[in-house]
């Protein structure tokens, strides 16, 4: 066992020093996932805009103004009726859409929202009606952005309202009235506020607010900063997305694809080093040491297996940290990575006997692995393939590797669903390995 580990460590070290191989194993797969993920993403993915369902329970002119401001925002998409009017949904309907992932979030404007627009300013929280944003807790980036956008639009609508002097005067009168009626306010404070409101009222009637420079400013940053300052008038409600086995982002598709390219590079890389060892004499030298045939191949296999797992872990880590990939079933992912690594380790063994020289192996092995990659969904995602091609793809280990990785990441697989791809992959691995060893021995190791 020590011998096998020593040999495996040696092989991994040699591979890590091969810059060319490392490019194909590390950089290329990540680049592939990012590049194609971004290309897909620009056509209708979440990056194109946040799709918001509107729930207007208030029905006031003010709530209408807020929704129109939101609809006009660049980063937001909302539904409109054929007439062009904004589509108003029930809360249940909107929540379901978000759960299904068909809308990024819903915005609820509760009844009474328009009656008290200044509740945003420091009214005891929970007191006045609040806006409600329903979104999946996993979508943190989008949630943050949406909060900013909503606050921005609310202030935008409020500004518009304040430009209308009559409305402001009415509002101030209302405020005075409610202040006079309130009996839970300290008399001194009441006096100060009443005086202030009277003064303000006189001030507003003497000037035209429009001349004060309160034009429409679209300063998103300012709006964002305001959110914290006014006692969180916007409530964020968790609406957990249902796991329905649909890809959540294009990276759900391109990341497993990229990972499989990395695996092919690992298999080819080790296959070629085995041939190099044969032709350079180090293989014979190892056999002169107390190393058996089985240990030699065991070392190669262990090294290849380790690097397969390593490259997958790297890809998935990169995906989760940088691309926002989420793994639904980490336990199934372990099984998927294990069986995938076995399949590609077997492939390595077959690749290594596909020629006598490095160049011959490099050439003929691409001839074997490229069709595997092409029909197995390494280039065109499986779901976009015509059905007959999907049927053919069962002969490609690439297909099963992608399915098992996707199964654990987003396909909503259970243990039973994972059994088939895992067994097929392990079978592929065993078959390829046996074939490789058979030829290896025949041609005199």
């Amino acid at each position: 066992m020590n011998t096998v580990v020593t040999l495996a460590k040696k092989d991994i070290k040699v591979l890590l020093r091969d810059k060319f191989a490392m490019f194909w194993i590390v950089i290329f797969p990540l680049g592939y996932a990012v590049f194609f993920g971004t290309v897909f993403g620009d056509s209708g993915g979440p990056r194109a805009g946040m799709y918001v369902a509107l729930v207007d329970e208030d029905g006031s002119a003010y709530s209408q103004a807020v929704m129109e401001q939101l609809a006009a925002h660049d980063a937001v998409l909302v539904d409109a009726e054929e007439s062009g009017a904004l589509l108003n949904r029930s809360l249940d309907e909107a929540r379901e859409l978000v759960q299904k992932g068909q809308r990024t979030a819903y915005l609820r404007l509760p009844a009474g929202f328009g009656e008290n627009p200044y509740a945003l300013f420091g009214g005891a929280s929970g007191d006045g009606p609040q806006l409600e944003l329903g979104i999946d807790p996993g979508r943190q980036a989008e949630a943050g952005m949406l909060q900013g956008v909503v606050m921005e639009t609310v202030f935008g609508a409020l500004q518009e309202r304040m430009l209308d002097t009559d409305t402001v005067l009415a509002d101030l009168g209302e405020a005075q009235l409610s202040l006079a009626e309130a009996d839970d306010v300290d008399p001194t404070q009441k006096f100060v506020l009443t005086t202030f409101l009277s003064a303000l009222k006189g001030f507003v009637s003497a000037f035209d607010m429009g001349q004060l420079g309160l034009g429409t400013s679209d300063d998103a940053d300012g709006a964002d900063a305001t959110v914290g300052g006014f006692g969180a008038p916007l409530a964020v409600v968790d609406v957990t997305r249902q796991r329905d086995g649909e890809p959540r982002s294009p990276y759900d598709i391109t990341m497993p694809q990229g990972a499989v390219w990395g695996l092919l590079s690992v298999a080819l890389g080790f296959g070629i080093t085995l041939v190099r060892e044969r032709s350079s004499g180090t293989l014979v030298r190892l056999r002169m040491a107390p190393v058996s045939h089985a240990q030699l191949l065991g070392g190669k296999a262990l090294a290849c297996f380790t690097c397969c797992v390593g490259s997958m872990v790297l890809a998935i880590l990169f995906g989760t940290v940088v691309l926002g990939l989420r793994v639904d079933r980490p336990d199934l992912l372990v099984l998927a990575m294990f069986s995938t690594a076995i399949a590609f380790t077997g492939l390595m063994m077959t690749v290594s006997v596909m020629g006598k020289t490095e160049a011959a192996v490099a050439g003929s092995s691409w001839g074997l692995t490229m069709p595997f990659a092409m029909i197995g969904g390494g280039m065109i995602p499986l779901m976009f393939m015509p059905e007959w091609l999907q049927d053919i793809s069962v002969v490609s280990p690439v297909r099963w590797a992608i399915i098992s990785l996707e199964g654990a990441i987003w396909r909503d697989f259970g243990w039973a669903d994972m059994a088939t791809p895992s067994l097929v992959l392990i079978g592929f691995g065993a078959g390829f390995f046996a074939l490789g060893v058979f030829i290896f021995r025949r041609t005199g190791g």
Partner: protein
Amino acid sequence: MIDVTSLAKSYGDLRAVDDVSFCVNRGEAFGLLGPNGAGKSTTIHLLAGVIAPDRGKVRLDGADPQEAIVRTRLGVSPQELAIYEELTGEENLRIFAALYGLRGDALVERVHWALDFAGLTDRRKDRAAKYSGGMKRRLNLACAVVHDPELLICDEPTVGVDPQSRNHIFESIEALRASGTTLIYTTHYMSEAQRLCDRVAIMDHGKLLAADTVDALIEAHGGSSLVLAEFDEPPPADAQLPGTLDGTQLRVDSDKPFELAAELGRGPHRVRSLRVERPDLEKVFLQLTGRSLRDS
């Protein structure tokens, strides 16, 4: 220590090793001398258990080196460089030390020793790819001795090496010899065999033609010595001289070269120079094969 009996290995029709038998005693230095293609490397591969013989057997103290564990006692420096160029000299040595079962402090100590042995201590952190040809050869040899083997097998360790490295290699092998390591050494340079080996086997076309001490080989197969004389003036045609005369040059084969030389010196013709050539392994090879070692 090593017993080789009726060893044979063919590649297709080619008999690379053909009925070879010899034995090597503990502490002895045994040379395999022969031209390229004689079958030396094939014999080494059979000794090291890398390939299986068609017939015959190899025994190391009674055990078969085709069993991995037996090979722990061997150190082999193959003719082809067999080091990992992507790795440093030190890493190469560590791998081979570990493969031969060294661990921990013992491994570190032996790796240091081997780096010193190869004169690579200063360059130990450099990748082998950056080494000169001679340094790679030295590393190749160091990898064979890092585990302190009882028996060291060197297959043409000085081929294609600059004179300085060649000397270094030669001296380090002599040092190992002095410390009691048994040695099997193949070469097509007879001078190396003559200088280093207690006994030498002459090999050609897969066959072992003779095996003995250098002196005994020369005694048995070297034939007579050669006496070369050059006269001041060409002797007359009727002069009573042995051998063949060519102008002022005389060549004589003789079993008693020094007596003949003395006689020529006393003779009637004035001798300008006189040379005696004792037979060497080259002559032995010529005698045994009808070909010169250098030409083949």
